[in-house]
């Protein structure tokens, strides 16, 4: 791999580790996984399906939205 690319990746990873350790840990876990199973994909799907706009924007002025399960 190009050394400049490696340094850029290291720099970005350092910035991420410094500013958002939780996001870094989550990303590291994803990229260190050797293989993926149907269960892994289903768990990710369930996590995503459970998220609602109101979870991120508690002070929203919009009426509650219906749950989207896909």
């Amino acid at each position, binding site marked *: 791999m190009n050394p400049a690319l490696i340094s850029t990746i290291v720099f970005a990873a350092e910035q991420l580790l410094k500013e958002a350790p939780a*996001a870094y840990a989550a990303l590291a876990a994803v990229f260190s996984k050797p293989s993926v199973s149907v269960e892994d*994909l289903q768990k990710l*799907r369930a996590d995503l399906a459970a998220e609602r706009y109101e979870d991120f924007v508690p002070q929203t002025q919009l009426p509650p939205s219906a749950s989207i399960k896909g």
Partner: protein
Amino acid sequence: MKSWKTTSAGALAIIGAITTLWFHRGALSPELVMGAATAILSGLGLVLARDNDKSSEDVGAKSQTATLPKTGPLLALALCAGLLAVTPGCSTSPPMAVYRATSTAHITVDAAMRAWGDYVAQFHPPVSQEAAVRDAFNKYKLAQLAVLDAAIGYQQAQSDGAALSQAQRDLNAALAAAGAALGDLTSLITSFGVNLQPPGQ
């Protein structure tokens, strides 16, 4: 061009991703397409960001668009994930590539949506803007669920050649739609004034 450094870096990232797709146009794989999509989104983030020697006033931003504390990691995350996704030499299966790309997008969108939540709490934007972001978020979510459904279908079709071919086509279509939905959501949030600059810059 007020922020020529980030804009140039973003343009190069986009050109690089498009060039990669062009050279592999005869044999596009889901991981290549998703990697290029991630690199293009990273490039868009750089194009939208401002240089670290430019203040909000320099670029004509209103005072209420000052840096929000939780938006800093977004650019680093997009950059890191984009670089990892387009790194050659990593032979990953399509479901693994989808798992990585979807997880990265999930983390990125979580951060962007939390930043939007902070912005709403602080600046109370019009209901129409909130409705637009919620619609874009729901569209992105449905698109990502379709990608995961297609990846699960691909994984389950491994032993059936004909089914695998159809599953590959479904996966490619779902990936293209998800990439577009993710780009729409992040662009919309940025267009309403949520800054992707790291704190203190």
